[in-house]
């Protein structure tokens, strides 16, 4: 019986509260990104950033006619999807545990553990992973020492490494999206289900999981968006061998200096991400009965 949230915008005299954030958003996000996207319709010339009035779709034609680019699109979507599912699989049990831990000390400790992984810079965390995962890293070194393997397992510089890196980075976001939602599910709902004859597992799948859907959807979307746009993780954990769209963008702009073509890839990445999210949202809304 949650009361319908009041719409702040409909409160007379409060609309100006959104002005500071809107200003920051427009000046530092909308204008730069829009101007970059505008560049994508110019002819690609290395080292030139200024606009010309000659509009062309050459850059986009190039992206969709060269396998290296559209394969990167599919790879980006696939990796982001796998990371979302994996992050959910690892994040849900942890979020459930934290949500159900009523002991304040233990609860705080678990929250600190989750948040502490966000305290370090991403690059440092990834270097840590590399120490663990490299060919001469701790895992391979240990297995080689035990004689369980004769040559190092390929843990890094491949898709697997990228996915592990992304899951590691995105897990806290997933957990944080879920905790609040799971906490809001009143324990008496689970108890009511139990008293009506549901086992612990049946109560979880028929009550707790469906009611967690808003958190699952939000967390998965967040993780998907973070993963598909990540440059650092594929660069470090993929060792330039796992080529996703952000890597192409970086190469085109920072290495070749072709801003217009890099911008075109960025547009494609953005549109791809929006379409994927829209499709996902539609599907999710259907499975959860429009309760998102």
């Amino acid at each position, binding site marked *: *019986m*949650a009361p319908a949230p009041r719409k702040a915008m409909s409160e007379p005299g409060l609309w100006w509260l959104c002005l500071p954030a809107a200003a920051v958003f427009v000046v530092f996000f909308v204008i730069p990104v829009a101007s970059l996207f505008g560049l994508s319709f110019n002819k690609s010339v290395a080292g030139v950033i200024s606009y010309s009035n000659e509009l062309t779709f050459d850059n986009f034609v190039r992206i969709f006619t060269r396998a290296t680019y559209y394969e990167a699109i599919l790879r980006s979507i696939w990796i982001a999807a796998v990371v979302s599912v994996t992050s959910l699989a690892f994040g849900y049990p942890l979020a459930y545990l934290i949500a159900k831990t009523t002991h304040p000390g233990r609860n705080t400790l678990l929250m600190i553990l989750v948040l502490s992984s966000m305290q370090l810079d991403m690059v440092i965390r990834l270097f840590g992973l590399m120490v663990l995962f490299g060919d001469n890293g701790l895992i391979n070194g240990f297995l080689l020492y035990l004689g369980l393997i004769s040559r190092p397992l390929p843990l890094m510089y491949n898709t697997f490494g990228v996915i592990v890196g992304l899951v590691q980075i995105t897990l806290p976001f997933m957990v944080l999206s879920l905790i609040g939602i799971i906490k809001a599910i*009143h324990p*008496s*709902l689970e*108890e*009511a*289900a*139990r*008293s*009506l*004859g*549901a*086992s*612990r597992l*049946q109560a979880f799948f*028929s*009550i707790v999981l*469906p*009611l967690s859907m808003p958190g699952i959807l939000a967390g998965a979307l967040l993780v998907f968006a973070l993963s598909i746009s990540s440059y650092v993780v594929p660069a470090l954990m993929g060792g330039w061998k796992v080529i996703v769209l952000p890597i192409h963008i970086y190469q085109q702009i920072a290495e070749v200096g072709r801003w217009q073509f890099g911008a075109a890839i960025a547009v494609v990445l953005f549109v791809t991400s929006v379409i994927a999210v829209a499709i996902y949202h539609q599907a999710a809304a259907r499975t*959860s*009965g429009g*309760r998102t």
Partner: protein
Amino acid sequence: MSDIQLKNLTKSYGTYTAVAGIDLKIGEGEFFSLLGPSGCGKSTTLRMIAGFIRPTSGEIFIGSDEVTALPPEKRDIGIVFQNYAIFPHMSVAENIAFGLKLRKRPKEEVRSKVKAALQQVGLAGYEDRYQRQLSGGEQQRVALARVLVTEPRILLLDEPLSALDKSLREEMKYWIKDLQKRLGITTVYVTHDQDEALTMSDRIGVMQKARVVQVGTPEEIYERPKTLFVTTFIGHSNVIDVTVVSKGPDMMVVLDGRKLPTRGPENLEAGRAAKLVVRPENVLINPDARASVTLSAKVIGESYQGAIVRYRLGIGAQEIIAERQNSIGNERFSPGAEVMIGWDPGMTEVLAT
């Protein structure tokens, strides 16, 4: 339908004892209330019967089956929570069908039983509504329908009326009691509200500090309280300092220098200080011959309550309360007036301090 037996039921959390060795036998078809202030252990007791809390020691029987170690889903119970716990992602029909589907009943049977259950609670045609479209009273009826449709052996109600507003609470009180009588289902009702317990129950168990201090019919609990806690927790009571003169059924006590007949337990020896308990509605002002005990008193204050008028009266240094029906012809008294007060000794009780 089954009776319920609790044998030396105990629950402790570390050094804190929530429920301390409760022995109770609740008869088949009985409406039994556990009444007490918050933190007295009544909810913990109910949750142990339901199976949500494992007792530290003791045994629970439903009918002839020991259920102490069984999980809630194997106990064949129905419980209605304070917040009703309607599943928000299911329609009313799906909520009620939940228990039947778990029992793998055929679709046709489920549909007809859901319909009959809604009829029974007066919500026919509510099948497709969702929790957010229901009022508190309607949610409660759905919660009851959801429970009753599975034909549980016992019904547990955990403060089911406390979230409703006053007028609806009055209505639901009688409605639940009627339904329970009609079905003849053994019911344990947890409440901190003495009115609910008195009007609805066949018997009441009054709990205080993890223990059941008195079990009895509403009349016994109200008129024959065994402890000062019971008499002050249930209704208002005047608790007057007296000294015991002689013990037993023909007990005499001294109040304000006068010897008064009353009744009390055998263990109060002559000469001891004790408490004389008398309900405000039994204190008569300027009584007629019915009152065999009379005292002079002084009106200290008058408070108008609508149906009744409440007087604060001074007897010596002590103050007592008297309530009078505000009927036509009933005289009113102003503060400062000298009056006679009296009561029937049979309506008083002497309790140890």
